C-alpha cells in the first residue's frame, strides 16, 4: 500500500523494450513457419502414410501436445548438452517452439485435409480439371478458408508463448522487462507496460490476420474481437 506509480523512469527504456518485442516477433514468426512446414509433412504422413510412419507421428503429436512447452524447452536446453549438442538459448527456444508448433499445426492441417469434399473433386474430375486445377480452384480455396482462423489463433498463442524465452536468458520482450526490473525495481510499472506491448502486438496481428482471412480467403473471422 502507499505505492505511487511512476512511469517516467521506466519509459526511458521504452525503445529498448520495443527492440525486445521485435525479437519476440522474430521467434514467433520463425517457429510458426517452421511448425507449419513440419506440421504439413506430418499431416501428409497422417493422411497418406503407412502404418509405421503414421504411428510415429501420432506418438510425436501426443508427446508434444501433452507435456508443457516449458518442460520441452528445458529438455532441449539442459539435456541435449549431455549428448554433446550445445544450443544457444535463442536456438533452444526456437527449436523447442518449432517442434511444439509442428505437433499442433499438424493436427490443424490434418483437419483441413479431412474436410476436403470428395464430392467436389468428383465434379471437378468429370469437368476435366487437371490435378493442378483441382488444387487451384477447389482444394486450396476451401482449405485456406477452413484453416486460416485456427492457424491465426495458434500464431497468436505462440506470440505470447515466446515469453518463455526469458527463462533461458533470451533478451526478448519479457527478458528485457526482467532486466529493467532489476535495474529500476519499478515492477508494477514495467510489467504493466510490457503487458500493454503484448496486447498491442497481438491486437495488430489479430486485426491484420482477420483482414487477410476475410478478404482473401472468405474465412469467417471477426476483425474486432
Amino acid at each position, binding site marked *: 500500500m502507499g505505492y505511487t506509480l511512476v512511469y517516467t523512469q521506466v519509459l526511458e527504456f521504452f525503445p529498448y523494450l520495443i527492440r525486445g518485442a521485435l525479437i519476440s516477433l522474430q521467434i514467433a514468426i520463425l517457429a510458426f513457419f517452421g511448425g507449419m512446414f513440419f506440421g504439413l509433412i506430418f499431416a501428409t504422413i497422417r493422411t497418406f502414410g503407412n502404418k509405421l510412419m503414421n504411428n510415429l507421428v501420432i506418438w510425436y503429436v501426443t508427446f508434444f501436445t501433452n507435456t508443457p512447452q516449458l518442460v520441452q524447452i528445458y529438455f532441449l536446453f539442459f539435456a541435449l548438452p549431455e549428448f554433446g549438442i550445445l544450443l544457444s538459448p535463442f536456438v533452444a527456444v526456437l527449436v523447442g517452439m518449432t517442434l511444439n508448433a509442428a505437433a499442433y499445426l499438424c493436427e490443424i492441417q490434418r483437419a483441413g485435409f479431412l474436410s476436403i469434399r470428395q*464430392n467436389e473433386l468428383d*465434379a*471437378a474430375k*468429370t*469437368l*476435366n*480439371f487437371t490435378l493442378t486445377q483441382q488444387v487451384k*480452384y477447389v482444394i486450396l480455396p476451401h482449405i485456406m478458408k477452413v484453416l486460416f482462423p485456427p492457424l491465426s489463433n495458434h500464431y497468436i498463442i505462440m506470440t505470447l508463448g515466446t515469453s518463455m524465452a526469458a527463462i533461458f536468458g533470451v533478451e526478448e520482450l519479457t527478458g528485457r522487462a526482467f532486466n529493467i526490473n532489476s535495474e529500476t525495481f519499478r515492477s508494477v510499472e514495467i510489467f504493466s507496460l510490457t503487458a500493454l506491448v503484448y496486447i498491442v502486438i497481438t491486437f495488430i496481428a489479430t486485426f491484420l490476420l482477420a483482414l487477410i482471412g476475410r478478404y482473401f480467403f472468405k474465412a469467417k473471422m471477426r476483425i474486432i474481437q
Partner: protein
Amino acid sequence: MSQIEIKSLNAYYDKLHVLKDINLNVEKGEILSLIGPSGSGKSSLLKMLVGLLTPKSGEVTLNNNQVNYTNKTDLRKIREQIAIVFQQYNLFQNMNVLKNVCIAPTKIQKRNQKEVEDQAVSLLEKVGLKDKLKSYPDELSGGQQQRVAIARALCLNPEILLLDEVTSALDPELVQEVLDAIRILAAEGMTMLIVSHEMSFVKEVSSRVVFMDNGSIIEINEPKIIFENPKEKRTLDFVSKILKDK
C-alpha cells in the same frame, strides 16, 4: 450403331462387386431411364461412364471408339462428350452460382468468357434461378442446387447427359419445369440416361427403361411393358411396390 455400347462390364468398390456383367446399348437421342431399389448400382453405372469408377473387365464403346478408362486422353475425351448431374449435386461450395456454371467452359474448355456467361445466365433463367446468380450453394435449397447442377452440365454443351435422381429434391411445381426442360433437350436430340423414381415421368419420356437390382441389369424394355407387363418377376415386384407406395 449405338452411341454407347457396354459389354460384359464388371466393376468393384474394393471387394464389393457393384456392377455385374452389364450389357447395354444406348442409341443416339434416346432417353434411357434406370430404375431399381436403392443400392442397386444405378449411380455407380453413371459414375463408371464418366470414369469415376474404373471397370475391372468388359468394354465401353462411345461413338464407335473403345474407351480405355485408365488412359488420360480417353478420359478427357469422354468427359468432353458426357456430362453428369450428381445425386448430391456436387457444386463447388466456394464459388457462387454463376461461377459454378462458368468455370469449366471458361477455364477448361477455354471458351470466350462473355459468350459463356450469356449462355449460363440464359440457362439459369430457364431453370428459374435468374435472381440467384451471386448466391453460394449453402444459401440455396436442395432443389435450387439441383437446378444449378443441371445448368452447369448443360453449359458444357454435352452430347450425352447423365441425370442422377434429378427430380427427387425438387418442389412439385419445379418437377414439371425440369421435366419440360428434359423433354426439350430430348427433342433436340441429346442422349440422356436418367435415374429417377418419378415413375409417371419415366413412363412418359423414356424410350426404354432399365431395371437394375443388386448390381445386375434384370430387364430392359419399353416403359409400357416394364410398368404394365414386365417379363421378370423381380421387375414386377419392384414396380408394383413403387406404384402402391405412391
